[in-house]
């Protein structure tokens, strides 16, 4: 399965400035592992120590937040588009 992965500006140092890259994988988890092989360091930016997607990173498959799909086990098919968008977040002086 070959999918297109959209890379946000903040992570393009890792992908040699490419804003979209190809990756293989039958699930999101496999796709992320494939990305890590091609672009070492990327997985750490997407997943925390327990291997889950970081709270302040949004990952979408065909525009749907994977938190509302099946998370890391979301199946991928040929031609799917995976998008990574960092959270727009912060807060005030508590």
């Amino acid at each position, binding site marked *: 399965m070959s999918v297109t992965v959209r890379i946000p*500006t*903040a992570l393009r140092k890792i992908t040699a400035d490419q804003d979209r890259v190809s990756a293989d994988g039958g699930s999101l988890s496999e796709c992320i592992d494939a990305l890590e092989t091609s672009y070492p360091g990327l997985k750490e930016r997407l997943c925390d120590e327990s291997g889950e997607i970081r709270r*302040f990173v*949004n990952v*979408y498959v065909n*525009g*749907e*937040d994977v*938190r509302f799909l099946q998370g890391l086990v979301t199946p991928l098919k040929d031609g799917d588009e995976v*998008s990574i*968008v*960092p*959270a*727009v*977040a*912060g*807060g*005030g*002086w*508590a």
Partner: protein
Amino acid sequence: MAMLAIEQRYIDEMIAHARQEAPLECCGVLGGRDGRVLKLFRATNAERSRYRYNIDSQELFRINRECEENGWQFLGIYHSHPDSEAYPSPTDVGLAFWPESLYFIVSLRDAGNPEVRAFRIRDGEITEEEIEIVRR
């Protein structure tokens, strides 16, 4: 020279949004290119909090896609501090994942005199930036 040119109506709209959401924090995105803001996107604060904001993920996807399709960047990201000063909090610095964007903060601490300031937050460093108010 200012790094970012923005029309007064966008400043006014950020303040109006902040007042509408108070006492909760509001948030949104300023899309544009070549240092010129072209559209303000109001967004839903998924945290619904007085002290935290996080743009709803599905809205963020749509805003990001519309900007990409127009060749725009997130020139600015804005949120409000309903009860505190217009300066990045430790939370703002810790969650600043958009080093290329200017972070606008609307303070409503003095309700009659809202204050809007803009900062670059990069690698934990806060730098206030001058903004240029332009005519339409």
